Structures are given as structure tokens and as C-alpha cells.
């Protein structure tokens, strides 16, 4: 892709776990925020026709989807420069994991959009 090709280095292994780290962060944040919101009574408070809890959770959900999607651009640029024997497989695996993590973030947080409340 670009002229500055280089071998895959140890720190590139970061890309194997980056996507799912965002997933894990989003998952923990949703679970924790929901518990705190229920404790603080946010589901009883309304703000523009939805509960504060719903707003907060939806916000966190979308933020993590954005973060997961945003990983993809630098990954493309960096993985595009990888060369050498491991480059092809490593690139495939890193891209697949980043996209799979994004899909998982969307999937496992989706109940935020459908279900309501603290019961």
C-alpha cells in the first residue's frame, strides 16, 4: 500500500486484542452504569421523553460502537504496511477480530434499545 513497508513486530500483536478490549470496556461500562443508574434512581427521572438511565446507556453504547469502528482506520493503514512471511495471515486475523469485536459490541449491547428499567 504505502512505501514504508516493514515486518510485523511484537507490538503489532496489540491489534489482535484491541477490538475486543473495546468490546470488554463497553460491556463492563453498560453493566456498571446500569447498576449505578438503578441505585441512583435514574430510571425514574425523565429527560426529553426517555429516562435518564436510557439516555446514559444509549450514549455509552453508541460511544463504544464508534470507538470500535474507529479502530478500523488506523488498523488498515498500519496492517497495510506489514510485509514478510507472517504479514498476510496476521493482517487477516487482525481485521477479522476488529470487525468481529465491532459486531459483538453492537449485538451484546442491543438490549439497551429494546428493554427498559431496573426490574
Amino acid at each position: 500500500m504505502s512505501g514504508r513497508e516493514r515486518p510485523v513486530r511484537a507490538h503489532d500483536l496489540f491489534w489482535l486484542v484491541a477490538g475486543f478490549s473495546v468490546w470488554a470496556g463497553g460491556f463492563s461500562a453498560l453493566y456498571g452504569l446500569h447498576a449505578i443508574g438503578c441505585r441512583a434512581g435514574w430510571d425514574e427521572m425523565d429527560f426529553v421523553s426517555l429516562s435518564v438511565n436510557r439516555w446514559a446507556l444509549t450514549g455509552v453504547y453508541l460511544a463504544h460502537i464508534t470507538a470500535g469502528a474507529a479502530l478500523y482506520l488506523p488498523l488498515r493503514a498500519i496492517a497495510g504496511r506489514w510485509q514478510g512471511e507472517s504479514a498476510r495471515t496476521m493482517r487477516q486475523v487482525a481485521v477479522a477480530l476488529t470487525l468481529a469485536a465491532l459486531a459483538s459490541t453492537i449485538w451484546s449491547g442491543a438490549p439497551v434499545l429494546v428493554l427498559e428499567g431496573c426490574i
Partner: protein
Amino acid sequence: MIGSLLILAMMMGLILWPFLKRHKPVDVPEALWLWSGGLAFPLIVLTALLIWGLPAGQSMLAGRTPPVATVEAEAFQWGWTFRYEGREGDTSDVLHIPAGGPVDVAVSSIDVIHAFWAPRLAGKVDAIPGQTNILRIEASEPGIYAGQCAEFCGLGHTAMRFTVIAHAPEAYEAALSAALAGDGGG
């Protein structure tokens, strides 16, 4: 259940097929195989299950419609004390409810963790010291229903059974009064 058996049969067929005598190595296309079998197939099945399962779970919860009665179930090692909203006294190991409508059971414990489970009336919920969990149960017909502690709670766990008696709605108040007037039994 039947769906599961079909999936099992299909998978075992796929796995055992290559062992047949007349099997010739097939150059299966890797991408097609893994995209369809590994990704698309489970995702379709799971989405269907989740779309069915989440609302079904929601509808089993208390809160949507007001209950026809509210009772308290307090677990201890090893038995149950039942109290009734607006009534003095309690009953031991026998719970009286009106049939034909949802009843909210506020489940708690005074010692270790137990679980309230009357299999024919609802799912189960844990009785946890320091917190109260609400379970919605419903008996469509009057009758006697068996219940038991479903979370291991020590030596007396096996014998920690209880009975739920569902009365016809018009007879409920009288039956409850009679039970509460008794010596705490049912």
C-alpha cells in the same frame, strides 16, 4: 427441543459422511463453508431465539400489571415463613394464594441463600440475605402445588419443601383467615 435434535442430526451427518467408504475427498471452498456454517447459520438461529426469548422473559416479570395479591416469603434454615399484605400473622411452609391471577412473592432470607421454586407456577428466584427479590407466580386453577428450596443451603436442604395452595378467588380471604387463625400451619 426438536430443533436441537435436527441440528444434532445434521452436524453428525456432516461429520460422519467423510468416513463412508465411497467418500472421495471434496475440495470444499473454505470461505463459503466457514461464512455460511460458522457465521450465518448460528447467527440466524440465535437472533430468532433472542427475539423470542427477551420479551418472553420481560413478560414474566412483576410490574406490568398490578398483582391480585402480594405475599412475603422468608426463608430460613430450613423452612419458609409466609406473610400476607395487610394481614397479621404468618403461615409456615404453606403458602395460600388466590388462583387465576398474578401474585407477587417478595422473597428474602434471614440466614443463607435459598431459592423459592414452585415449578408449576413460575421460574425460581433466590432468597438472599440483605435483599428482597420479587417473583411473579400464577396458578390458573385452584389446587395444591409442590414447591422446594432450589439453592443448596446445608444439611436440611433436601427436606426444605413447601406447599402452595391456590384457592378460588371468592374463597381466598376466608381460607387465608382460617389458616392465619390456626397455629401458623396451613
